[in-house]
C-alpha cells in the first residue's frame, strides 16, 4: 500500500480521498482479498474504523439512519432497530461469527456488493437508501437497488464514500428473515430471504415486501408481485401462485445454471412457507 490514513473525523477523511483510495470499514473483506493476492501496492488505504461519528444509529420518527461503520454486532444490540426492523437484527445476527460481527460493518457489507450479503435483503426490505458524501462534502442519496450494480460493483464514485444507510421503520409490519447456509454459523448464504407484511383490518394486505438474496447477482426485491398482492387476502392458492411466480422470475433472469437446479425449487418452497407463516 502506498499510503495508509486513519482519520478521526469525517472532514479529515474527506481530505484523504483520492482516485486510488481503498476503504477499510471493518477490514474483514479487504484483508482476505489481500491474502488472496489482491495487490494494494498502488493504493491509498483509508481506514474508517476510528471515526466515532461514522458509527451509531439515529432514529427520527419513521426513519432510521445507520452510520456506515456501525458493526453488525452494534446493529444487533441496537434497540431502535430491534423495535422497528427486526428483520435487520436477525440478518446481522446471522452474519459469520461473533468475531466477524464485532469487526464487519453495515457500510462495508453494502460497499463490497456481495450477492450473498446477509443484511442486504433486510435493508432493501426497509427501502434502504445509501447516503454518500464526496470530497467536497456534498451528499447524495441513492436507493440500494440502484447503488448496487453487480457483484463487487456499485455506483460509488472515486471521490465519494458511504456515509450511512437510511431505512424506514417497519414497526407495524410483521417481518421475517430466513437464511439458508451449509451450517448454522460461519455460513455464507446459499439463499436469504426477507419479508414484511402489513394488513388491513379486514385481513387484506395493506403492504407487503419481498426480497431475496444470493439467488441473483444482485439482491432482488419483487416490486411487481408486491403491488399485485396489495388489497388481496393471502389464500393458499395465492401463496402457491406467488411462490411459483417468484421462482420463475428468478429462473428467467438467472437462466438454467447449475445452481438453479437447487435454488429455483427452494425459492418456491421457502417463499411459500414464509408467506404461510406470515399469514398465521
Amino acid at each position, binding site marked *: 500500500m502506498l499510503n495508509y490514513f486513519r482519520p478521526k473525523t469525517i472532514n479529515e477523511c474527506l481530505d484523504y480521498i483520492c482516485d486510488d483510495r481503498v476503504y477499510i470499514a471493518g477490514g*474483514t473483506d479487504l484483508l482476505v482479498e489481500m491474502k488472496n493476492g489482491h495487490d494494494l501496492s498502488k493504493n491509498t488505504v483509508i481506514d474508517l474504523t476510528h471515526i466515532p461519528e461514522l458509527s451509531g444509529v439515529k432514529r427520527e420518527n419513521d426513519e432510521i439512519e445507520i452510520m456506515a461503520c456501525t458493526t453488525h454486532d452494534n446493529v444487533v444490540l441496537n434497540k431502535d432497530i430491534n423495535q422497528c426492523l427486526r428483520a435487520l437484527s436477525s440478518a446481522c445476527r446471522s452474519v459469520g461469527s461473533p*468475531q466477524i460481527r464485532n469487526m464487519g460493518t453495515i457500510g462495508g457489507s453494502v460497499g463490497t456488493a456481495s450477492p450473498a450479503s446477509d443484511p442486504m435483503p433486510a435493508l432493501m426490505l426497509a427501502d434502504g437508501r445509501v447516503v454518500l458524501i464526496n470530497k467536497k462534502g456534498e451528499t447524495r442519496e441513492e436507493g440500494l437497488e440502484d447503488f448496487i450494480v453487480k457483484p463487487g460493483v456499485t455506483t460509488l464514485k472515486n471521490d465519494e464514500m458511504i456515509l450511512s444507510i437510511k431505512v424506514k421503520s417497519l414497526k407495524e409490519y410483521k417481518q421475517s428473515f430466513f437464511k439458508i447456509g451449509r451450517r448454522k*454459523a460461519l455460513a455464507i448464504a446459499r439463499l436469504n430471504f426477507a419479508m414484511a407484511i402489513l394488513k388491513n383490518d379486514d385481513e387484506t394486505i395493506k403492504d407487503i415486501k419481498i426480497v431475496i438474496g444470493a439467488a441473483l447477482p444482485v439482491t432482488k426485491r419483487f416490486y411487481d408481485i408486491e403491488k399485485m398482492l396489495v388489497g388481496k387476502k393471502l389464500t393458499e392458492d395465492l401463496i402457491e401462485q406467488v411462490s411459483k411466480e417468484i421462482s420463475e422470475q428468478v429462473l428467467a433472469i438467472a437462466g438454467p445454471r447449475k445452481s438453479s437446479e437447487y435454488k429455483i425449487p427452494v425459492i418456491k418452497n421457502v417463499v411459500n412457507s414464509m408467506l404461510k407463516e406470515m399469514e398465521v
Partner: protein
Amino acid sequence: MKIQLNTTINDLLVSVEIEQDARLLDVLRDNLGLLGTKEGCGVGECGACTVIINGKTANSCITLAASMEDCDIKTIEYLSKDGELHPMQESFIDNSALQCGFCTPGFVLSGISLLERNPKATTEEIKEGLSGNICRCTGYEQIIKAVEDVRDKKYNKDGASNE
C-alpha cells in the same frame, strides 16, 4: 513501507515498527513473540487467531495492524500474566476441554468474552458465542461444559469469575 505502531497490548504500552500492510496476527507473533495467538486459516473462519480488541473479540488474521493505534488489545498471554490461571483456563483443564490445544487460546478468549457480555448465557447462547471458533478435535461438548461451569461460578475464588 514501515510505520510505527503505538498501542496497548496486555496492559503494556508498546511501540513497534511494523510493515504498513502487516496483519495484527503477524505483528503479535513475529514482532512481539506472543505465540499463543495461532493461525489456522488466515481468512476469519476458524478463530484460532482470536484476540480481544477494545473489549470485543476479533480475528487478528484479518485485522490490519496499522489500524490498532491506541487500542486496547488482549491476547491469551494476558490471562496468566501474573502466574495465576483465569477461571476459564482452569475450567478447560478440569473439563478436558482440549485435545491438540491449537484452538484452545481462541476458545478461552471467546468463552470469557461471551460471559462478560452475557453472564447468564444459556447453553444455546454459549454455543452461539463460541461459533466463530472451530475445533476439529473435541466435538465442542466439553468446551461448552467448561464455559457453563464458569458461568455457574464453580471457579469463583474471589467473587469475580470474569477478569
